[in-house]
């Protein structure tokens, strides 16, 4: 005996036949402990195998299942049905990305921007093997730990009004990742990243709407990361223009 019956309206889009997306209604039984992903899996398994969507871990670590649930970007595996208001649940693909099929969006733009911020340890000179590993205190780790939690779910891009209005904007997750490496004591690549991060489509396109941090399922706080980089880049800008900056290599 199931907990109750729920209704969902899911945005469908089949590029081979549809000119525009349209809502399809589903009515299914559900259990009290289900998340939205369970409901969608039920639909796929029992009602409509044509429904396309991304998911993997079902435990909020892979970042695959981001979608708009009642207008908010959320992980479908982390959104409990019992926490949603009564009535038909509206499910759409992540906002601000082109729809490929049904709930699957084209994430190429994000992938490309992620690479542009050079999200890896950059050293001025490589560490020799006999020097041993980099040592890092717990305090040094704590400094950037929060920004390592990003699972690339792109919920922040779906919430960001600037990304919606300015497609060139690097976006919250890419910038937060740049900040993660800038804060890492092992990294020496801040100047390398500045060309992209401190450009007009980097941190300076952010209007501090804070929507990204509000929706982030891993509490990364990309908005905070960007504001901290604004302060750092501003100090760097003044130092450069006053002739006190670091020599450009």
């Amino acid at each position, binding site marked *: 005996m199931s907990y109750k019956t729920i209704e969902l309206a899911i945005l469908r*889009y089949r590029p081979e036949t*549809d000119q525009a997306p349209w809502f399809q209604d589903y009515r299914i039984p559900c259990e009290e402990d289900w998340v939205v992903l369970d409901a969608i899996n039920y639909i796929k398994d029992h009602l409509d195998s044509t429904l396309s969507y991304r998911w993997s871990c079902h435990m909020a670590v892979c970042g695959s299942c981001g979608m708009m649930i009642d207008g908010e970007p959320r992980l479908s595996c982390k959104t409990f049905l019992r926490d949603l208001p009564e009535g038909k649940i509206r499910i759409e693909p992540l906002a601000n990305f082109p729809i490929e099929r049904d709930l699957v969006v084209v994430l190429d733009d994000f992938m490309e921007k992620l690479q542009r911020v050079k999200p890896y340890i950059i050293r001025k000179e490589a560490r020799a093997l006999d020097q041993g590993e980099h040592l890092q205190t717990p*305090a040094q780790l704590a400094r950037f730990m929060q920004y390592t939690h990003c699972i690339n779910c792109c919920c922040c891009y779906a919430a960001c009004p600037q990304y919606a*209005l300015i497609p060139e904007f690097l976006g919250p997750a890419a910038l937060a990742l740049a900040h993660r490496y800038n804060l890492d004591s092992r990294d020496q690549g801040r100047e390398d990243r500045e060309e992209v991060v401190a450009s007009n489509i980097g941190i300076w396109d952010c209007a501090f709407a804070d929507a990204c941090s*509000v929706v982030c399922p891993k509490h990364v706080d990309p908005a905070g990361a960007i504001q901290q980089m604004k302060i750092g880049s501003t100090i760097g800008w003044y130092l450069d223009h006053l002739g006190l900056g670091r020599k450009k290599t």
Partner: protein
Amino acid sequence: MIEKSLIKPFVREVPRTTWYLTRRRDRVHMAQELSSVFIGGYALLLLWGVKALAAGPEAYQAFLTSLGSPLSLGLHWLVLTVTLFHTVSWFGVTPKAMPVQIGEEFLPGGIIVGGHYVIWIAISLFILFVAGVFNGG
């Protein structure tokens, strides 16, 4: 064999002039942005006052008198509300922009925000005291 690409991505348009109306969070953000209009406007009022001060006692008295017009009073209440809104929202985000790390921990945001309020109250009381607001009569 697939002879033509099935990929025809659909781009959803964003309503450029009304997107912020749908969600409360976006409306609040736009209100914060537009608070700057009133801050700029009040700065222009102060500039006008300085102009009057520089011009002489008659001009300055005329300036003070004009502060009493119904329009001025109405705008003042609006500006007071907006500046308080600005103060609250400005202080609220300080822990994000300036996190304070002590050892492995971070100072709780509430302390950073609370510290700003303490300083704000002290500065406000100082301004009001120096202006003579607390002198009897």
